[in-house]
């Protein structure tokens, strides 16, 4: 009888952890999304700058500017820029495919943010290397609350 009581306590303890795990899930989903982009390659930090207002009043439309340090010549250019948001229901935000004909690796767009979170930008260079940068932001009105 005492063992079943112990089991019961363990089980309720485990059950109480489940919602906590599901909240954390999006962060690992973001890591998974990043892994899907880069595959087995290593990501280095730097060269990528992501600009988002540090305090966002309305998550429905947030201006995001991503710029990558690159000479953008025929032999050395940014092939792609991927944007991943940790706190959104779907971590992928956008992928931009560039070439040396872009002249400079700067892209601006408007995104939705569901929560205060970090947004990552991953740049794929023409030599196959990956670089990343992030911006942290505080969102007061989430994008998905509006009906």
């Amino acid at each position, binding site marked *: 009888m005492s063992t079943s009581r112990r089991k019961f306590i363990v089980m309720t303890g485990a059950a109480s952890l489940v919602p906590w795990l599901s909240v954390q899930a999006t962060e690992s989903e973001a890591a998974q999304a990043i892994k899907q982009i880069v595959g087995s390659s290593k990501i280095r930090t730097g060269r990528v700058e992501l600009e988002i207002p540090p305090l966002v009043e309305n998550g429905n439309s947030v201006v995001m500017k991503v710029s990558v340090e690159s000479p953008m010549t025929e032999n050395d250019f940014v092939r792609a820029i991927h944007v991943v948001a940790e706190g959104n*229901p779907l971590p992928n935000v956008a992928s931009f495919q560039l070439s040396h004909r872009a002249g400079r690796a700067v892209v*601006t767009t408007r995104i*939705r943010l569901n929560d205060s979170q970090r947004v990552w930008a991953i740049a794929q260079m023409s030599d196959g290397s990956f670089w990343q940068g992030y911006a942290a932001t505080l969102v007061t009105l989430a994008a998905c609350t509006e009906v």
Partner: protein
Amino acid sequence: MSKTSRTLVTMPATAKKNEIIDIRIIVQHDMETGFRHSEQGVRIARDIIRELVCTYNGVEVFRADLHPSIAANPMITFSTVAIESGTLEFMWKGDNDYASSTTSKITVT
């Protein structure tokens, strides 16, 4: 019949050769995320623009894959090097057979 909507392209009409020009494009679209519910509690199906392609005299110079996290009426600003006079074409494709395209001419001196 496929859906379409208004588009707006802002870019210079003339440029010097090898000058980097900024292009801003906006397309009218709700970008329904698929995560919202109607007043009856029914989930509203996803309806977004998935893809944007920009070609310069037939050669692809920029492409973007969009996801539900892009705000309504997607605006994208990017750049390209003005190499020759010609036409830039912008094409958007999305859910429910959405398609729209527009062209913009540039004179390079």
